[in-house]
């Protein structure tokens, strides 16, 4: 097992994120085959139904698609869809708390911008 799943987030979410990360990092290209639900279940020793839930969310988003009897594949638009979604999350998850903490520490907008450039 290369990755082990942690306890903090629901398992199906971790599986979904793992596939998404692999697509964003370019490890998975469009039309690449991804493991089946059962393969995920066996790999991480989790209930097949739970694994299925993570995979199904990806199918619903259009990131992957099923070919009957063959398996599941990364769709052509996968990266585009994911980047759009992540950008939205990025603001909520990182920018908003960043701003909040900056206010708490008395960092001015200008100072913050300088910091961002440095980082």
């Amino acid at each position, binding site marked *: 097992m290369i990755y082990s799943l942690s306890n*903090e987030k629901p398992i199906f979410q971790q599986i979904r994120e793992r596939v998404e990360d692999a697509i964003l990092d370019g490890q998975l290209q469009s039309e690449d085959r991804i493991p089946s639900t059962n393969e995920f279940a066996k790999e991480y020793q989790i*209930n097949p*139904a*739970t694994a299925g839930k993570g995979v199904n969310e990806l199918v619903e988003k259009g990131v992957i698609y099923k070919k009957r009897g063959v398996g599941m594949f990364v769709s052509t638009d996968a990266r585009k869809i994911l980047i759009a979604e992540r950008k939205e999350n990025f603001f909520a998850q990182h920018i908003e708390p960043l701003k909040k903490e900056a206010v708490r520490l008395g960092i001015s907008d200008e100072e913050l911008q300088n910091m961002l450039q440095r980082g």
Partner: protein
Amino acid sequence: MKIDVRNVSKLYKQKHALKNVSFTIEGPKIIGFLGHNGAGKTTFLNLLAGLIPATEGHIRINGENVFNAPAILRNICFVAESGNFQEDMTIAQCLKANRFFYPKWDEQLANELLQVFALNPKDKVRNLSKGMVSALGIITGFASHAAITIFDEPYIGLDVAARNTFYDLLIDQQIEHPRLFLLSTHLIDEASELFEEILILQEGELLLQKTAEQWDQYIVAVKGNAQDVERAILDLEVIYKHIFMHDMTAVVYAKGRAIEGENITLENVSLQDLLVYLSKQQKERLVK
């Protein structure tokens, strides 16, 4: 397979081992059957397998009462904690005997598993170690292909590697021959991700029955400043509360409701932790 439990009570010497338990489960599914010692797990599993009569209520499988009903019981394989085999028989004879009683017995799987668990078919049950008897029970459970397979503490005396083999097998079998697996175990952390549904018994009563999906929103830990936490959980049922340096951790039944409040964080509670909290709660109640 549908198991329907209605108002089941079991009295042992005037003491309630089970109190008015009702629920329905439907398979194929892997179900975790949890609770601490003396919560009534084994008593319930014995009732389900038709081994003991209920004092009140009934257990029906696909609409038929299980007690003394061989046609139904043929679909159940119950691997108990101990005493599953005749001491004077060899492993090979035990497995041969199973062929007569489980209509869907998978001889090939049984032979494969003998090698996986490194058992010698010529050994007598009397001379086996605890772990080996557990392994024989596991082989019986899986090779029976019974629509309802019950494992009550199936891996006493087995090491981590062998337990891992068990989990792998469970997933494999669930994929290839889906059935209703009921697994009762103390090693909750190891097994919790295998469950699709969870039933927890406490003091002979059914405390909760949730799917793994519902679980995350059902019980949560609220953390933060004591006052903030108190305000957030005002009208919720509390399982456990702990204060350290003005910080409070409160484990509550959120029951799917969103908990809101200033400066608090919400965390998931693992099954293992919940059982610890529950036993603390029970002890407190006893002290009072």
